[in-house]
């Protein structure tokens, strides 16, 4: 069956019913000084100067090839970094490495040598929480301006203190001779943060050698709107749910809401009624189609550089999806439709009309996709720009923590809907799409084929919902008005968002608000692969690679 995966060779600690943490602890021997139990996995506490040894053992000998996330936080008596590890082959096998460091001088070893993705994650932890990572290749602020004072998610931060922000990088790039000093044959080109090809406010510092990219440094943080702080200020029950819509804002709201819903429901032990799960699955896949349509349209815009046919067609089709989503949720973009334990309300009446509308859309979809294939993938100019450009090998994709269509375009068979099932996905018949080209073309192809799979899922959901007995339409479980999870529970849970693994770490402290809320954004990790892809490529290929990554700055910067 499509939902099964070939089993991997036996690794240390793997047993039939999950991970044997004792065997893993034995593997690490004296490195493990304490063990914690998180809701999703066990946590091994290790000394701050043994991080590299521990992670490299776990990566090479126990098969933990995916550093999903790094959470940094400050307690009353210490700082703490948590490395959330899992496996690309089976993401249900998870392990947290907890690294405490002293309050007065928070230091620990960097993991950037073991996992490439740790580079940016540690920079973010340094920027927002203030932990120093020794042996890090380039530890400087990533989201906030370089002249910022203080670390905003640390305990003693004063939010009202004045700040000074410079405009240095924005000086006219051609004012001085921009040939770089140490190598006079190269030239510096400044792209963004206001640029039509950067999909929002991304700033890309590029060094060109002739027409080829010699060095590239994505500069992010132009849309860092303190999402984690906002979520830490809100109560679990209702005040957090509106924010996920605004992480990945290209209509992927339902998928993001599910990430929070899943984490909080598992934390507070809430069962979601089956009927609500089917509605969730259907609306989430509609969101995915809308998001992939935008990816397709803007990618065509990047490669062809026009605002005409393909871009407009993609938006025409998005309008149809958005109308359906508006019927469900009452909003075109920021749905706020999920609730902890279910959804806000039942499907719109009259139901027949509503289902008819979805079926009409699904019936038209194959023809539309065929048209896109004619216009895009079959186009010779497009192929010349995209085939064999922006190559990302599967090994690099894994090391950078790439997920979603970016990983699947590199042949990494990783999809949380199948591998770490939630919702109603494991009851339905659909396939995980992978392509092995590893180039820009594959990534676009994966998205287009995923739209077909999403349509299959929606169709099955509609069938189910149509026949659902009227007296069994329970949309909401019984959830207390104020949710107060047990103190000191920790959880990391992820769902398959439009761009990849969208994970959330929550630590509770017994109050009705989370003590720490960390968002693992797929775009953040995916964007890190850009230098890897575009080194030595022409600059238009770099723009195509950027388009094929399909980043949303709201989610990169949070």
């Amino acid at each position, binding site marked *: 069956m499509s939902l099964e995966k070939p089993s991997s060779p036996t690794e240390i600690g793997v047993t039939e019913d999950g991970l044997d943490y004792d065997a893993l602890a034995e593997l690490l021997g004296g490195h493990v000084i304490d063990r914690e139990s998180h809701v999703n996995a066990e946590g091994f506490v290790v000394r701050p100067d043994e991080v590299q040894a521990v992670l490299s053992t776990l990566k090479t000998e126990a098969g933990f090839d995916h550093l999903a996330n790094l959470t940094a936080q400050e307690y009353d008596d210490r700082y703490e970094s948590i490395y959330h590890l899992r496996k690309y082959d089976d993401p249900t096998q998870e392990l947290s490495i907890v690294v405490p460091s002293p309050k007065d001088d928070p230091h620990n070893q960097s993991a950037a040598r073991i996992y490439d993705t740790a580079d940016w994650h540690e920079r973010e932890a340094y920027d927002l929480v203030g932990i120093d990572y020794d042996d890090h290749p380039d530890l400087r602020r990533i989201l906030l*301006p370089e002249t910022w*004072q203080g670390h*905003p998610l640390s305990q003693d931060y004063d939010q009202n203190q004045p700040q000074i*922000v410079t*405009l240095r990088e924005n000086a006219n790039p051609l004012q001085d001779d921009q040939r770089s000093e140490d190598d006079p044959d190269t030239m510096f080109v400044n792209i963004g943060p206001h640029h039509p090809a950067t999909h929002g406010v991304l700033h890309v510092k590029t060094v060109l050698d002739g027409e080829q990219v010699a060095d590239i440094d994505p500069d992010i943080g132009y849309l860092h709107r*303190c999402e984690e702080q906002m979520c830490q200020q809100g109560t679990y029950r209702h005040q957090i749910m509106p*924010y996920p819509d605004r992480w990945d804002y290209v209509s992927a709201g339902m998928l993001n809401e599910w990430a929070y819903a899943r984490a909080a429901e598992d934390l507070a032990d809430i069962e979601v009624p089956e009927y609500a799960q089917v509605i969730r699955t259907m609306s989430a896949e509609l969101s995915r189609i809308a998001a992939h349509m935008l990816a397709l349209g803007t990618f065509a815009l990047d490669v062809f550089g026009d605002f005409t046919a393909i871009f407009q067609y993609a938006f025409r089709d998005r309008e149809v999806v958005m109308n359906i989503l508006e019927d469900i949720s009452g909003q075109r973009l920021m749905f706020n439709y999920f609730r902890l334990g279910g959804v806000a309300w039942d499907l719109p009446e009259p139901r027949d009309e509503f289902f008819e509308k979805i079926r009409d859309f699904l019936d038209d979809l194959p023809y539309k996709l065929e048209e896109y294939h004619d216009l895009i993938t079959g186009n010779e100019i497009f192929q010349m720009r995209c085939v064999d450009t922006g190559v990302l090998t599967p090994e690099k994709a894994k090391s950078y923590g790439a997920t979603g269509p970016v990983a699947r375009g590199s042949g990494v068979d990783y999809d949380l809907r199948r591998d770490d099932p939630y919702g109603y996905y494991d009851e339905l018949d659909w396939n995980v799409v992978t392509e092995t080209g590893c180039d820009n073309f594959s990534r676009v192809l994966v998205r287009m084929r995923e739209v077909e799979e999403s349509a299959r899922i929606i169709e099955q959901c509609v069938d189910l919902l149509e026949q659902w007995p009227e007296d069994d339409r329970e949309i909401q479980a019984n959830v207390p008005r104020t949710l107060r999870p047990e103190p000191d529970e920790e959880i990391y849970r992820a769902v398959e968002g439009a761009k990849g693994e969208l994970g959330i770490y929550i630590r509770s402290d017994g109050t009705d608000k989370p003590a720490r809320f960390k968002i693992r954004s797929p775009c953040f990790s995916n964007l890190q692969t850009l230098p890897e892809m575009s080194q030595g490529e022409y600059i238009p290929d770099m723009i195509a690679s950027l388009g094929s990554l399909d980043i949303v700055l709201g989610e990169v910067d949070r």
Partner: protein
Amino acid sequence: MGEGADARFNSTLREAFGSTPFILTKFDQFMNWVRGSSMFMLQFGIACCSIEMIHTYAIKHDLDRFGAGIPRASPRQADVIVVPGTIVSKFAPRMKRVYDQMPEPKFVVSMGSCTISGGPFQEGYNVVKGAEEVIPVDIHVPGCPPRPEALVYGVAKLQERIANGESSPVTVKPYELEQFGDLERDELVEHLADEIDEDDLVMRYNWNDSP
């Protein structure tokens, strides 16, 4: 329009003029009418609202119908900037620079709650509480995000204002771009003196004074 003029010139507008082909008006009024009827928008995306802004330009809502539909990639070719999203400290100086590069006369439509007050992110440590903290705004379109219809209405209102020769007053004292050397020497400035050159442009945020 002498004899033998093509029939296509005989529009309803032409008929309305009656026998005389001339209109008497003030030049300024004429120019205002022209400006309002043909606006070049800046292609400027920030956050969530930019998605709805694209939908406003695209099929179905088609802002071009109102003579305001051509997005220009360069601020030097644009006369209206729609500010579609949350402005954070790192971006505000850049937005100011983009605005400064637009030729006069220029107009600003602020789209969404974030550009009015910071919206849902108002309490964020990094969020500028409204576009008006940085640049003067002519029309505010509320919503999170506003529907395309709302933005169309906002643009139509702007056209009306321009045709009437109205311009917007600056209601708050905005954050300005200044040279670092011109800042008042206080503790923070002293602290950063090693990092920032005297003639670097900077923006100083006094969060306490923000509305």
